[in-house]
Structures are given as C-alpha cells and as structure tokens.
C-alpha cells in the first residue's frame, strides 16, 4: 500500500512518521513516499527558530489549541530521552512583553511555570509595562527534520526530489493515499483563497550570552510584527516581520533595518553580535488549519487526499497534534478499505 506525502517540512515529515509508526505494523505492505522540491535546510520550517508558542488568543478553532497542547506534551515527554539533543529539542524560558495588561493566554497551563512579570523584571524592558514569564520548548528544525528523515528512512520510507504539479500526477501512479503537506504553496495544487503568505524575515546572529527568548507584542502592528529575540542552540534569531500577502522570498533592506534597530533597542548588547545569516520565509497563513479528507475524482478513478496545511506561524507548535490527527484520518481510510473487502478496484 503506497502513501505519498507531498511536502518535507515539519508537517510533511512528522505526518509521514506518525502514519508509519502507527500503521506499518498493521499494514506490512505500507510504503511511505515523500515528494518535495525543497528539503531541509531549505524548507519554511528551517527559517523558523522553533519556539513552541501559539498565538495569544485562539481564533475560534478549539482543535488547534488541542493540537498545540498535544505537541507540547509529546515533546516534553521526549526531553529526558537520549534523542533530545539529536532532535534539537530543549527547554527554554523567557519573556512576552506588552504595552498594556492583557488576559492570560489559554495555553498558560500547558507551558511550565507561567507567571506575570514583576516590576523589577519590567525595568529590563523600557517601553513595556506588562509581561509574562514562562518555560517552553524549542525544537530546532535544522536538527529535527534530519532526525525525522533518519527515522523514516530506517523504516523504509523513500524520498523523491520532485515538484509535484498535481494530485493526479501522484495518485494516478498507483498511490493509494496522498497526504498534502505543501504549506504556503498548497494553492498550486488546489486553489485556496484562504491561504496567504505571511512573509517573515530573520537575522541569525552569534550572541551566546542570551539565554532567554524575548517576544514583544504590539496590538497595533499585529502578530509577529514586533521585535523578538530567540536563542537557539548555536545562534540567536532576531525577527519581527509579518507581511500578509507578500510572496517575496528575498531579503529586504528595510526589514533588516527594522529588525536590527528594534532588537538592539530591546537588548543593547546585541550591537556586539556578529551577523551570520539573514533570510526570509513565508508563513502558510490561513484562518484555520486545513486538516481534512477529500475524495478526488479523476475520470473513473478516485483518490483519497488528506490535507494538512495552513499552520501559519505555529507549525512547529502544532505539528505533532496535527500529524496524529492526520494519521487518524488515514486510519479511517484503512478501516473503510478493510470493510469494503478485497474486491475494491485498484486505484
């Protein structure tokens, strides 16, 4: 039984692994195939620093909060394992800063040690009068994606470097189920006006004295359009750009200036930091994640597609919960096949 996953970012690879782990034992003929034109370190996931943090308020999509929590709990469970370092997973604490008091986020009890900032702590951040401190997780995709890839290969998954132009191209080739994890470019396979790029730009620097994340919020400029400083295992990432509808993957000098000046204002010692790399990525923004089945008909054939895309700026944050949900949909397909019996026409 062949399953084609289109997309090799964090969503594609984790969904593939989840399906493989859950069903390979039950379906010995299960063959996972991953198709993508971009692999790590060139995926959108690689641009993100990897901090687990949902949006401040849920958008009226309660299942997204469940997927976020499932992801956090799963990763927390992996922390003590010998795999953690190879996965690029570690605990990190830090600050969320606001210019006025805000309600606590719905995920305050998912993270560890959530509390509001004391007046002494706020002295560190002139211009911000309110904030949170908590301990979360960081999952670096430059380690995590290779780790997922290695696990998949160990169990026989195959990888193809290819730009898939249509679902038919893959499902017409004898593939039983297609998993669509194409992120921001999902519209090229099937038009989706709700999916828009949320362009981000980040500067990667050497600043190993920074041990906390600092994420600022400005209700007027909007989500991710306010400076943030997030330390990874080797580099610290400076960001704070989110341009809805902008498809450019080129670095912008104006955005560089915005990020650099606002982050140095936040942490004056950053002026000494050496810039290592600067790049842009397109968050696959959508009012809600598209995580659902679709039966596509092409001539007298039909194929099952499971969509799993549109995770905006919380792809890493939600990836495992979504992978499990997608795997659940796959399981439903398996059950239907089984119920239909062995005379089901080959797709």
């Amino acid at each position, binding site marked *: 039984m062949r399953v084609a996953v289109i997309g090799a970012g964090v969503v594609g690879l984790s969904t593939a692994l989840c399906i493989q782990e859950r069903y390979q034992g039950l379906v010995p003929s299960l063959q996972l195939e991953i198709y993508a034109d971009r692999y790590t370190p060139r995926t959108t996931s690689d641009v993100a620093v990897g901090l687990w943090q949902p949006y401040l308020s849920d958008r009226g999509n309660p299942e997204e909060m469940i997927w976020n929590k499932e992801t956090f709990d799963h990763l927390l469970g992996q*922390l*003590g*394992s*010998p795999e*953690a*370092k*190879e996965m*690029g997973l*570690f*605990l*990190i*604490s830090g600050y969320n800063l606001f210019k006025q008091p805000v309600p606590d986020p719905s995920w305050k009890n998912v993270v*560890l*040690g959530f*509390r509001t*900032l*004391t007046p*002494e*702590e706020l*002295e*560190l951040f002139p211009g911000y009068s309110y904030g949170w*401190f908590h*301990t979360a997780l960081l999952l670096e995709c430059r380690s995590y994606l290779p780790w997922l890839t290695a696990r998949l290969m160990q169990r026989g998954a195959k990888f193809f470097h290819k730009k898939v132009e249509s679902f038919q191209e893959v499902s017409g080739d004898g593939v039983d189920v297609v998993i669509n994890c194409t992120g921001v470019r999902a519209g090229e396979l099937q038009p989706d006006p709700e999916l828009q790029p949320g362009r981000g730009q980040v500067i990667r620097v050497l*600043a*190993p*004295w*920074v*041990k*906390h994340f600092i994420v600022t919020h400005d209700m007027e400029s909007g989500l991710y359009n306010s400076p943030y400083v997030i*330390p990874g*295992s*080797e580099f610290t990432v400076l960001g704070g750009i989110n341009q809805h509808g902008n498809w450019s993957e080129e670095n912008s000098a104006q955005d560089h200036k915005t990020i650099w000046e606002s982050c140095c204002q936040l942490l*004056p*010692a950053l*002026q*000494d*930091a050496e810039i290592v790399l600067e790049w842009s990525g397109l968050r696959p923004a959508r009012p809600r994640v598209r995580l659902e089945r679709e039966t596509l008909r092409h001539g007298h054939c039909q194929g099952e597609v499971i969509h799993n895309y549109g995770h905006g700026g919380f792809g890493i944050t939600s990836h495992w919960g979504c992978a499990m949900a997608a795997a659940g949909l796959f399981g439903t397909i398996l059950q239907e096949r089984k119920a239909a019996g062995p005379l089901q026409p080959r797709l």
Partner: protein
Amino acid sequence: AAAPKVAVVGAGVIGLSTALCIMETWPSCSVTVLSDQFSPNTTSDVAAGMLIPHTYPGTPIHVQKQWFKETFSYLFAISNSTEASEAGIHLISGWQVFKNIPEEELPFWSDVVLGFRPMSEAELQKFPHHRFGQAFTTLKCDCPPYLLWLEKRLKATGTQMYTRKVADLWDLHSEYNIIVNCAGLGAHHLVGDEQLFPVRGQVLKVHAPWVKHFIRDGDGLTYIYPGIHRVTLGGTREKDSWSLSPDPGTTKDIFDRCCSLEPSLQEAQDIKVKVGLRPSRWCVRLEREILSQGRVQLPVVHNYGHGAGGFSVHRGTAKEAARLVGECIAALQGSSSRAKL
C-alpha cells in the same frame, strides 16, 4: 598631603573590584594592583560566577543581604547595557531543587533575585529524585571576561597592575601608604590567618550550548551553570584540601551527578577539568588593621575570606573596603596635620 598611594594585593574578582571601587570613591588616590596571578589563572577564573549567595555564619544576615543587593544591582545595570557581552554578565533562569524539604523555604536573598517562587508540580516532574524546588532568575559573571573588563576599566583610570609575589605586607611600606589585602587564600600565609582554610572545588567546563537554565541541588554539591560559551558542572567541597590537581574519579562522579539532573549532558563535548580552592572563613575578614614596626605605621584594609560566595557579594564588600580606605586616608591626613603643628 600628597595623593595617597594605595596597593591592592590580589587580582581576582575581589582585588580588581575593590581597586575599582577605591578609584571611583577616592579619585585622588593612586592605586596599584599587585598579584602573583592575573586572569585566567586566579581562583575567580575557575568559579562559575553565579549570583547565588553563600551564607557566612559569622556575618549578620542583614549585612550579607546588603552586600548581595549592591552586587546584584550593579551587575543588573551592566547586563542591561551595551557592555553586557564584553563584561560577561548575563541573566539566567533556572531551578534549585531539594531532595528533602529545606528548613528555610525562603532564603534571605529571595527578594533580591528576580521572580523567585516555588516550583510547580509540573516543573518538579523533570526532577524525579527531588521533592521541592525554587525557580528564579539571577545573574552570572563569566570569567575571564568579567575580570578582563575590570582590568580594562582600571587601566582607564590610570591604575597600574604588576605581577609580583608579595611575601609580607610590610615589604610594601616604603612604596605605599595604604595596603588593601585581597589575597584570598593567599592570606593564610601572607598574614598568617589560621581561620582561613581552603575548600577544594573541582569543576568541569563543557560544551553544551542547548542547556539554557541553571540547575542546582540545594545541597550545594551538584550544579549546572551555563555560561556564555561553556557550561560549568560541579562540584566538590573538600575542606582543607590544598590540591590543585584534577582527580579523574571526581570528574566521573561530577559528570554522573550532573547527568542525573540533566540527562542531555551525556552529549556534552570537549570536557575541561579545573580546580579552585575557595578561600573559606567563618566570616569575611573586612576590617582595618594598623601594622607597626617601631614608630612606623602601615594601615591595612583586609577584604578576604569570601569562600563560596565571592561573586555574589564582591561589589558590596568592595564598597565597604573602599569606605575603610577612606578612614585610613582621613587618619593619615589627620596625623600628618598633627605632625605639622
């Protein structure tokens, strides 16, 4: 009277910070730092430089708290400035965990560090062998950067620094008017202080940059302190051991204890082993003394014996030492006025 000539003996964190405080408080002085060792070969260079106070049985708590507060404020301001990375000062959060509930749940310094609170049940799950814990944010002074930064500031004020082994404070009486004794463990021989004793500490300095939090066992023996480039893993507290040679059995023991607190340390690379002898004493010796031979007098200010808590109180004791130097200066000027009468 001519500008007083002050010699500071010792160039660890205490000597350098005391010299700087003297220059800041009494700019008319000339200050010279004399030491047989400078960074990176001082006891301070081995220490992690964490701002978590050690309690001195012989010093009133309110005094220790004042010293800690002054030190914390001073470093907090630097950490928030453009000089932070050069000075090696950074904020760090983490946990102090206890296998048994401590007698004192609120240490005297809990309201000086930031965000101090008991750990939640969820946080304690990460430490299955421990039943209670405290979470807070404090500061760390990385050495050598901090000592080098102090040296740079001293040079900018015109302070001279010389490598010189001082065998007897009296040897300095013809060149200097006031001696400030920041010799650390060296004071044991230099001034014959039998109350001063080494507490040997072995540490590992490892490459594990994904560790962003400090973790300290409340027993003070096992700790993980991430610095700018390396994580310090410790440690030992061996009273009266003068050995500066690393012990391989101890290395393994420290590594195992720290991995038990933080399993990902198994992947740590490039392990370097260091030994420091904490200059321990029942209380910090922070006082004036007048040495005399015949009719010649030599005022001395002692500032040593900080044991395990040097970094935590260094600025506070430096300021007090500078104040005592001021008393010496006043006494010298008083006696020289009397001499003129």
